[in-house]
């Protein structure tokens, strides 16, 4: 599902980076099929066929031991059984059978919603299971000399195993020796191999993935059965799903409303008897089911499962539903500068000559000296020279007798010696030293230029030349962080949603400020150490804010654990993945924003359907109460504003509407209500209009239509 951008990432991260030396490997922005600019969470696909396919599962869920967990639907189940018993006792009464049948359907529809939601995860789980075939591990003995073959399921934490090209890694662990390219497509769906090496932040390997080249020794860190892939299967299947705090709270409210309506219906009988209009149990059961909030009761768990599922579709695994809910509440986002706000690398923005040289001369020298620099920064210099100064890109082979000086992390410069001329470009310190070494001087003017660039938040690189006139500085290359397109709009959007963005960077405060201003983030943390990050999170949390962040390194782990939403990159260490409550399989930190939106969408869907469900009741009263009592109090027929054809048809229509609305809303529950970033005020106005007023009006129309259809059936009176 992702494209090939990652291919560039791995070599890039293997070679030493240029002068800017970011402390971490740059992240690539992996498109996920959702453009960040459109700022809206799309829904998953919903196929009506899924309803049919999930039908058997829905029937299986009729088990009272399962049903009792959802109090509202449990009441409906009891009502179904009761009306069925009554219908059996009086088999000649079509009305009893009809009510009983529709109450059963109401129950089944509710289960169906859940089954469909779960069914979508099952397909993904099956794919994962294939990866989890029993593997044979090559375990190293404690002295490290001999190998033995053991089943993967018998590995213990701390065991050392060897994997070579073609082997499936038997369990989660860290590479302790060697480098290998690994195919992780089983988990990420990403076909390009990734590099895993001992030490550092790229040592974690996942059981079920496949070594493509080389040999590594892996230290097992997880017990069989609890590996990442096992947890993933549980998560996508919904087996490990626990009710989230808000879901529990909502369930309590729904249960209490159910009790209120139970009271209203139970006490109605003595009132009715007094009025001379004793009601049958069937009618009372029908009234009760219509009044209790069945719509939201039926869809509540499907909404939760679908929320997790929407994350899974974006290749994010939430380890708990609680985290998804917290994502909606997040008010502070900590975003790493590199890879999230800016493109992974700095790029050359201009060439500044010292007096006595021209810009074109600097550009020429810079281009020439950067041909041997394969880092992204080096490439960007060549590109700038071509685009801005029309200098054709020369290739190393074109220049005969040239002696190329490749860029290394130690020398921090690159260049070429050709025709007696030596050109160099690189970090100011290195190049200045090179000039001085050769008897030249670095003029105060050059010093000034570099200072100016630094102050503006850029990175200066010196370009120097040694020819017959001696060694001297020609000019300065201005390297700049390039802010990703659309980020400013994104941050504006977040601000409107009440979310503060904080940019985290290892840069000095000057550089950080310049980029922060350009990107439009609210705040920044410069020269950030893991301790600083931790302190920032705690400070925000002490002020009552919920904090979300991404991280991949082992030293990110404490902060990931502290944050309310900690998204670990799948490329990161196992410590980071363990500490976070979400894992992004695409390792795309920009996705944090989408995660927040999905969290919000989940909560909005829940609120919208609750409001809709409760507002629905008004119309049902107008259908049922006159039907029950107009016989004794003819005045009450004035409440029959829908002009329903007969009392029985009115009650049946309300029950049918109540059942059908569940099915009608299943797609909405699964896809989530449409979400666009906007202020809370606008959002509430909009959603209250749609789901509050809509919930009041819709059943009047729906019940009337159903009644019209029923009244056409001959013999039902």
């Amino acid at each position, binding site marked *: 599902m992702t494209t090939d951008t990652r291919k560039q990432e791995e070599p890039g991260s293997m070679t030493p980076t240029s002068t800017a030396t970011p402390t971490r490997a740059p992240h690539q922005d992996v498109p996920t099929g959702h453009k960040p600019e459109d700022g809206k969470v799309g829904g998953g696909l919903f196929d009506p066929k899924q309803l049919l396919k999930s039908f058997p599962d829905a029937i299986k869920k009729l088990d009272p031991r399962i049903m009792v967990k959802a109090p509202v639907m449990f009441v409906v189940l009891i009502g179904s059984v009761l009306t069925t018993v009554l219908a059996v006792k009086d088999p000649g009464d079509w009305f009893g059978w009809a009510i009983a049948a529709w109450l059963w359907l109401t129950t089944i529809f509710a289960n169906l919603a859940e089954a469909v939601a779960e069914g979508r995860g099952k397909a993904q789980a099956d794919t994962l299971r294939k990866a989890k075939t029993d593997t044979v591990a090559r375990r190293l003995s404690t002295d490290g000399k001999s190998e033995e073959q053991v089943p993967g399921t018998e590995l213990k934490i701390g065991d050392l195993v060897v994997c070579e090209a073609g082997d499936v890694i038997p369990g989660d662990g860290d590479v302790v020796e060697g480098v290998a390219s690994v195919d992780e497509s089983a988990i990420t769906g990403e076909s390009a191999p990734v590099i895993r090496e001992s030490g550092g932040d790229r040592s974690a390997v996942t059981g079920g993935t496949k070594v493509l080249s080389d040999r590594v020794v892996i230290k097992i860190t997880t017990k069989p059965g609890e590996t990442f892939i096992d947890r993933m299967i549980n998560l996508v299947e919904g087996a490990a799903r626990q009710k989230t*705090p808000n879901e529990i709270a909502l369930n309590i*409210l729904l249960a209490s409303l159910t009790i*209120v309506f139970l009271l209203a219906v139970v006490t109605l009988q003595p009132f009715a008897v007094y009025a001379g209009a004793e009601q049958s149990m069937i009618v009372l059961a029908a009234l009760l089911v219509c009044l209790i909030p069945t719509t939201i009761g039926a869809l509540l768990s499907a909404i939760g499962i679908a929320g997790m599922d929407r994350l899974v579709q974006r290749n994010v695994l939430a380890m708990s539903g609680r985290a998804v809910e917290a994502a909606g509440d997040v*008010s502070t986002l900590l975003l790493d500068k590199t890879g999230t706000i800016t493109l992974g690398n700095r790029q050359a923005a201009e060439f500044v000559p010292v007096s006595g040289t021209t810009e074109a001369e600097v550009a020429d020298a810079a281009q020439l000296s950067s041909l041997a620099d394969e880092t992204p920064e080096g490439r960007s210099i060549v590109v700038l020279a071509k685009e801005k100064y029309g200098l054709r890109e020369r290739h190393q082979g074109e220049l005969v007798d040239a002696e190329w000086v490749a860029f290394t992390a130690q020398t921090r410069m690159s260049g070429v010696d050709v025709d007696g001329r030596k050109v160099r470009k690189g970090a100011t310190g290195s190049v200045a030293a090179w000039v001085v070494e050769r008897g030249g001087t670095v003029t105060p003017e050059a010093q000034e230029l570099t200072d100016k660039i630094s102050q503006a938040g850029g990175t200066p690189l010196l370009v120097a030349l040694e020819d017959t006139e001696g060694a001297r500085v020609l000019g300065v290359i201005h390297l700049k962080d390039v802010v990703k397109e659309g980020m400013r709009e994104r941050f504006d959007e977040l601000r409107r949603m009440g979310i503060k963005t904080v940019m985290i960077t290892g840069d000095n405060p000057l550089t950080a400020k310049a980029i922060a201003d350009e990107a439009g983030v609210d705040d920044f943390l410069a020269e950030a150490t893991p301790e600083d990050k931790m302190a920032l999170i705690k400070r925000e949390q002490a002020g009552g804010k919920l904090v979300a962040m991404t991280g991949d390194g082992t030293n990110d782990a404490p902060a990931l654990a502290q944050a309310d939403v900690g998204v670990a990159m799948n490329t990161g260490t196992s410590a980071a993945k363990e500490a976070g409550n979400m894992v992004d399989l695409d390792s795309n930190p920009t996705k944090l924003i989408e995660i927040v939106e999905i969290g919000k969408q989940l909560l909005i869907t829940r609120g919208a359907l609750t*409001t809709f469900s*409760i507002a629905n*009741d008004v119309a049902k009263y107008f259908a049922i109460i006159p039907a029950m009592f107009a016989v004794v109090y003819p005045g009450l027929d004035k409440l029959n504003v829908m002009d329903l054809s007969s009392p029985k048809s009115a009650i049946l229509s309300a029950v049918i509407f109540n059942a059908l609305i569940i099915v009608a809303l299943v797609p909405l529950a699964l896809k989530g209500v449409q979400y666009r970033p906007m202020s809370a005020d606008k959002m509430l106005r909009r959603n209250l209009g749609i789901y509050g007023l809509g919930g009041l009006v819709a059943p009047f129309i729906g019940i009337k239509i159903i009644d019209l259809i029923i009244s056409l059936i001959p013999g039902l009176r």
Partner: protein
Amino acid sequence: MSPVLAGVLQLLALIAALALAYRPLGDYMAKVYSSDKHLRVEKWIYKGIGANPNTEMRWPAYLRGVLAFSAVSVLFLYLLQRLQGSLPGSLGFKAIDPDQAFNTATSFVANTNWQSYYGEQAMGHVVQTGGLAVQNFVSAAVGIAVAVALVRGFARSRTGELGNFWSDLVRGVVRILIPISVIGAIVLVACGAIQNFSGIHEVGQFMGGEQQWNGGAVASQEVIKELGTNGGGYFNANSAHPFENPNPISNLFEIFLILVIPFALTRTFGKMVGSVKQGYAILATMATIWLGFIALMMWTEFHHGGPAFDLAGGAMEGKETRFGIGGSAIFSVSTTLTSTGAVNSFHSSNTGFGGGIDLLGMQLGEIAPGGTGSGLYGMLIMAIIAVFIAGLMVGRTPEYLGKKIGTREIKLAACYILVTPALVLGFTGASMAMDTPKNSMTNSGAHGFSEILYAFTSGANNNGSAFAGLNADTQWFNTTIGLAMLLGRFLPMVFVLALAGSLAEQKPIPATAGTLRTEKPLFTGLLVGTIMIITGLTYFPALALGPLAEGLAS
């Protein structure tokens, strides 16, 4: 002047007076409950009852204070009535029966003032003034104290402390209720209400025959009867009696007294939580419902058709000519929407819809503006429910005033809203299912049913007014309504204080653009809608068989 215009002018005058008093009284009450200083007289009281007014209480301690104080009050009031025969100043009245004494004791302690006795024929000076009137003060002060504790729960953070019950109770009486009552009583006496300790006078009637007139400390009891949203009249005719409520001016003044504290408490609330706008939103919610109900009531009472009604200018049966339909409609809506059991007209004689409006007003839970204190906390609970249901629609887990509405909070709020429907519907259902209780009805059919529904609605919601017609002095009604009043008052307080404790422990969440703005008109609309729908749905079937059946029949 047409009666309709007169009614509207009275309403406008009332609104103006309430608006004038709103800020000063609200700010003053906020100061009373926030100050560190004790008055000298308060220090004497603390010494007398052996309470330390400076210790901060967590919610269980605060609740223990409320319950212990109220239990002692019930016991004291019960004994006072049972021993009436041997007390001086009892006008020769005998001891009250145990079931009625229990009913009356709980009734006054629960700020309900349901009366199954005839004041002038049963209660002497000592019980009226030393027992019932005292409860009128303290039961109102208890209500305000609990409301203030809940407000502190919202205002405070990272502490479980809710203030000191004894200090809140004493200050409410000493600094708020007594000063206003003194002024109010003088106003009432100036209007013509009586204030003396004379005995019973035998007076000849115009049409022949004899009539008894009681003297008594009426004005002083009348003022707190209204101010404390109590409602227990010195006389059976309550505020329709000319000694209690002599003329339209006193009538308007009494309505003012009923409403002034409950409305002004929203200002106190806003002040204490640090945003008067939040208080205005709650005020707007209360005022919207109150005005809406008055408009409906006036409409149904004025437009009641038929030749006799047309001649009288509307449904004048059971109403005093000196108040007219306007003054009666405003009075009955204001009392049923607060927990004041006072009546100046007979709700039973209202049109079918009019009776229904009175019933629904109480069924809303006495929150618009509600009883002293209980109105505010009841409304805040509804705000929590509204925030919980609709607040999710802004994409955050629900929060109100910077506090999360989590599992514990919603559990307590849900328990709160369960109590009164359970009591009202449960006891009404039981009464209808049995044979004997139905013998107490005066009317048959839908109106008869309304009588019983009204009695339990009034009791459980701590209103205290009667629909008239129902003979409630039976063992069944004395006991069940007594229980309804007791449970309807104190169970919700348990949940409110527990909720306050849990809110006070939370750390506040700063408001952002993503936060639901609870000070905006949109939220007020949402809150009104939530209240009307939740209550409406609960009671619709019962109302349909009572007032609606009656109102729609014509």
